[in-house]
């Protein structure tokens, strides 16, 4: 049966007309604002002789980048510099998400420990690190790497892991065998190293965000009704199985939506790398902006990169969340 649309009597007093009026006014206002800004921008660019367009992306960038996942040198075009920046952003964000999730989960579970000291330490950690701005933490870690840690020649070592002004060095699989880092004259030799900039950004992101994730995990576990645990104990499940088979699957449904926004926060907060010179996409755009003066283009690129990342992460997590939720029925 088809639903006939209601016959609307068009008068200035009709709901339909008023609804349309509001919408037209809103669209006109926004349209005018956009026109006004665009018009001014074009006028200003003409007045200051600023060139516009994305053609500059093909020209040589002319600056070096401290670290890169792909081969790059100063003669490469701007688009390649941006690609290096995007990859660096993704690298620190993805590793950050992994480590922060691990830390945060431990922190959240630790809040339910039988041991009062563990509970207290987890609580103290959470409150300390989430109440200090992430930028400050990032600058702090960078200072620790550049000022406090010893020079390359005499690193602090924890087993085969070395910390020094050169960053964090660790054993790595090189040419078919494990290579262990050792201090050389000017840099670490063997193994693999993460630069101080990368480490500062990563540590800032991980320490800050894991405090939030810990709180999310704690709330998720607390949301599982006590009866569930009692039922599992009554069935004789050992503690480990109780957590894995009963508590976690239920807590996960409460945890995932806020966890998603924390993952997005890590990605967005990685933009603070610009403050210490880790060459993420914002730093590259900032340098390009200063070199070429193309503010509109460079800032658009930053926003576009983050929008695409945010939206795709959100879509993926929504999909995952649905999958977890459906298993309920």
């Amino acid at each position, binding site marked *: 049966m088809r639903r006939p649309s209601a016959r609307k009597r068009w008068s200035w007093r009709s709901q339909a007309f008023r609804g349309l009026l509001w919408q037209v006014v*809103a669209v006109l206002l926004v349209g005018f604002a956009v026109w006004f800004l665009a018009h001014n921008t074009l006028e200003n660019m003409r007045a200051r002789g600023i060139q516009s367009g994305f053609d500059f992306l093909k020209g040589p960038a002319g600056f070096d980048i401290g670290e890169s996942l792909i081969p790059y040198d100063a003669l490469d075009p701007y688009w390649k510099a941006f690609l290096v920046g995007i990859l660096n952003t993704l690298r620190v964000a993805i590793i950050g998400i992994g480590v922060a999730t691990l830390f945060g989960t431990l922190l959240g579970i630790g809040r339910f420990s039988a041991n009062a000291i563990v509970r207290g330490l987890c609580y103290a950690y959470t409150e300390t690190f989430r109440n200090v701005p992430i930028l400050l933490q990032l600058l702090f870690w960078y200072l620790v790497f550049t000022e406090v840690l010893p020079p390359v020649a005499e690193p602090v070592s924890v087993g085969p892991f070395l910390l020094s002004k050169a960053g964090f060095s660790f054993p790595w699989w090189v040419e078919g065998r494990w290579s262990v880092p050792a201090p050389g004259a000017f840099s670490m030799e063997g193994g693999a190293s993460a630069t101080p900039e990368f480490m500062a950004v990563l540590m800032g992101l991980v320490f800050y965000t894991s405090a939030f994730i810990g709180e999310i995990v704690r709330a998720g576990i607390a949301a599982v009704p006590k009866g569930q645990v009692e039922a599992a104990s009554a069935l004789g499940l050992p503690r480990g199985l109780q957590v894995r088979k009963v508590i976690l699957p239920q807590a996960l449904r409460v945890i995932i939506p806020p966890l998603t926004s924390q993952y997005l926060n890590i990605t967005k907060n990685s933009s603070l790398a610009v403050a210490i010179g880790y060459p993420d996409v914002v730093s590259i755009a900032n340098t390009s902006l200063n070199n070429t003066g193309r503010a509109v283009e460079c800032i658009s690129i930053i926003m576009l990169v983050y929008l695409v990342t945010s939206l795709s992460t959100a879509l993926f997590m929504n999909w995952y969340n649905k999958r977890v939720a459906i298993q309920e029925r």
Partner: protein
Amino acid sequence: MKKKSWIRKNLFANAWSSLATIVFAVLVVAYLPGLLNWMVVQAVFGPNVDACQAARGTGACWGVIAEKWRLIVFGRYPHLEQWRPALATVLLLGLLFASCVRKFWTLWLVPAWIVVWVVFFWLMHGGLGLSVVPTDQWGGLPLTIMLSTIAIAGAFPLSIFVALGRRSKLPAIRTLCTVYIELVRGVPLVSILFMASFLFPLFMPVGKSPDVLIRVIVGLILFWAAYLAETVRGGLQAIPKGQLEAAASVGLGYWQTQRKVVLPQALAIVVPAVVNTFIAIFKDTSLVTIVSLYELTGALSIALNSDANWRPFKIEGYLFIAALYFTFCFAMSRYSLWVEKQVHHG
């Protein structure tokens, strides 16, 4: 007896728990003396460069704060006039605290806020008998508090309209509000600040670019309004449909219904979440240092980078600022928890 059983239950309940307690005890014995030594015993508390240099590596130099605290707290604001930002900030904080008390939640808050803002800007900027201090010399804690307070004061009213718009029956308005919210929430604050710094001058009519402080404030308000709108929307969604129907059945129009029935209930629900957003705003205000506004974090850099004698003691400076931020944010999060309990009980 009671104490003994508490210890057994909470520290030695099982093998793992006992192990954790022992490991912790070993760590305390191994590292706590060293830490205390650095922080207190060997530390230099007076503003004495030579003593600090001598104690380097073995004791903290809290003297850096004794020496530089006015630069850190007030930034480049003229030394003799620093009573003005101090007084202005105390006024602002006083009203902020008063606004947190339920008893004062009346319409009188609106004129009170207007008066305090006028006085605040008069004290900060000068004129009418006070010497003028241009905005590029504002800095430190007063700037941090001002930016975060003005950001929430501006973003909150805006967010209410955006949240209502996202729930509107009118598709064009709903789409505009949704796109605004999702676009802003999809990009980092840094990019908005870059926009305020580099693009806003281009957006304005030729030759009429507002002060960078105003541009950053506009950017902060637009950014946080999107986040607050989602918070407010959560409150709106919690209002049962029956409330709207009852309002319609007695003849209230859309705006009357929102103002008299929906918003008073929805906003009461979201107070804790709004306080949490304010904490986030307060912390993230530190980012304006990236576009050369020297709030607390930036002021520390100015204070120490220009002085080679004291520069090595930046770590102590960071710890000091971190403690300041922690005090503010922790107090606010306690308040938010308290309000949440009130909401649940009332």
